[in-house]
């Protein structure tokens, strides 16, 4: 097995992206994601890649659009306010069917917000990262190992479906260090062919067009319908989640990313008190792992959604539970990390209520 190294989440995502064949990175500094860009600045030249600090987030995402159109594996990263700036470009990428990877190391919002860990961009990532009919595939890693694994996998998913893919991290995951085994680097000949890319036709084929402007409404409708067929395939094939101690759980917590770590500690503490708690952790936020969560409905007495925001994923949890059990919420916001003790108190209270 490859050697375990101690790395920050931000650095692990950057290194794993390079190992997945990412050779272009366009970014702009913002806390708490700056180590992604710093790592790329240091390491990209060593593999013949391009690191460029753009003049703004808007410029950076449009550079990503350009490199993706030319067939390259390309990434950008930012934190919440910066992702808002990139949202126009992300919509254009989705509209032009361009694969690319976008990292969001979330901080407290709205507005300029705080620089502390948050998950308040759930709605933005899963419902409206820009205008128009589109989705991103959104991975929500919960450990530094998963940050490396999903930064690597994101490029394959993006290329396979020709969609932009987002990694949703937060300031906690980005800043913390954990042991990680990095994926084996891909060689250039292992990367997928992109016959649609604008690489120059040398008079040997029709020219390729990368575009998101369609002035004939029916043409755009056809393209959107075709894209939604791909989304249907993604929904069918790409849902990922992890269940922890849910087999006999009365109270099922639902949490992702950094909040799932706190929830896991709270579940362990609840078990020590004799409360049958478990944790369901969505790994893909879109597609939301509805099927796996629905499967827990017959056995759970109640669900407790735990997030570092005012309650966003809870809407998807309620859709999956479909009224069959109570779904309650506990969260801290603005950049405050919930403590295992306060989550435990919410579990105990819900357990008493569910037992009545």
């Amino acid at each position, binding site marked *: 097995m490859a050697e375990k190294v101690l790395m920050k989440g931000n650095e692990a995502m950057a290194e794993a992206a390079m190992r997945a064949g990412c050779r272009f990175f366009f970014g702009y500094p913002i806390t708490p994601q700056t180590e992604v860009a710093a790592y790329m600045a240091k390491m990209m030249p060593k593999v013949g890649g391009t690191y460029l600090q753009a003049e703004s987030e808007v410029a950076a995402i449009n550079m990503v659009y350009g490199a993706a159109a030319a067939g390259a594996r390309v990434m950008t990263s930012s934190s919440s306010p910066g992702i808002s700036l990139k949202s126009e470009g992300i919509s254009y990428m989705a509209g032009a069917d361009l694969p690319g990877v976008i990292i969001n190391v979330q901080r407290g919002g709205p507005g300029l917000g705080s620089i502390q860990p948050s998950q308040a961009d759930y709605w933005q990532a899963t419902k409206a990262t820009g205008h128009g009919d589109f989705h991103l595939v959104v991975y929500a890693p919960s450990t530094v190992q998963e940050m490396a694994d999903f930064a690597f996998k994101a490029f394959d998913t993006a290329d396979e479906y020709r969609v932009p893919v987002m990694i949703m991290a937060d300031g906690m995951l980005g800043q913390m260090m954990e042991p990680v085994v990095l994926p084996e680097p891909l060689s250039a000949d292992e990367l997928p062919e992109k016959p649609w890319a604008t690489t120059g036709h040398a008079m040997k084929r029709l020219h390729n067009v990368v575009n998101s402007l369609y002035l004939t409404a029916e043409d755009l409708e056809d393209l959107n319908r075709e894209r939604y067929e791909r989304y249907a395939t993604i929904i069918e094939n790409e849902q990922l989640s992890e269940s922890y101690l849910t087999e006999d759980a009365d109270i099922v917590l639902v949490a992702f990313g950094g909040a799932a770590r706190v929830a896991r*500690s709270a579940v362990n503490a609840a078990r020590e008190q004799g409360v049958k708690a478990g944790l369901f952790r969505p790994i893909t936020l879109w597609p939301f792992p509805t099927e796996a969560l629905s499967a827990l409905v017959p056995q759970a007495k109640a669900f407790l959604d735990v997030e570092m925001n005012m309650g966003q994923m809870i809407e998807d949890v309620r859709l999956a539970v479909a009224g069959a059990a109570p779904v309650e919420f506990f969260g801290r916001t603005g950049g405050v990390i919930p403590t295992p003790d306060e989550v435990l108190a919410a579990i105990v209270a819900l357990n008493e209520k569910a037992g009545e």
Partner: protein
Amino acid sequence: MAQELSCVVAGFGGQGSLFAGKVIATAGLIEDREVSWMPSYGPEMRGGTANCSVTLSDAPIGSPLVLAPNALIALNQPSFDKFIDTVVDGGTVVVDTAMVPQLSEPAGVTVIGIPATKLCEEAGIKGLGNIVLIGKLWAEVGFCSREALDAAIAKCVPAKRPEKLEQNRRAIELGISA
């Protein structure tokens, strides 16, 4: 295997609290334990205090933020004052008395003060008070094997500064024998 270590290392920015935490985390890595290291990265770092949470465990680690440490390394008075009451019953606190003149010892907590920065200065290895205190904490609670501790120091000190490695080793010894 040793018991779980939930440690906070805290001091002024520049005293090396984040580095000290990394050494402890690296010792856990070398022993193939579950490890997490989480720094403070807020505005308090700019001219104020810097701290990190380090957990070494044999089970997967939930929240990496240590709110109830069983070990505290305090490099200055504000850090001691901020964290001393968070230490759990049975916990161990290692303090640089050259920087923390006012000590208190809550019931059930062992507070050990050594003049770490002064010991360094006298030994001609100024600025390694953080490492001296790691040595002292290790001597008190033995959070890893001696081999892992030495290997962690070797791994964390940049290879191109061999003289620094020797100084860090001496700092560890100073702490262990203090």
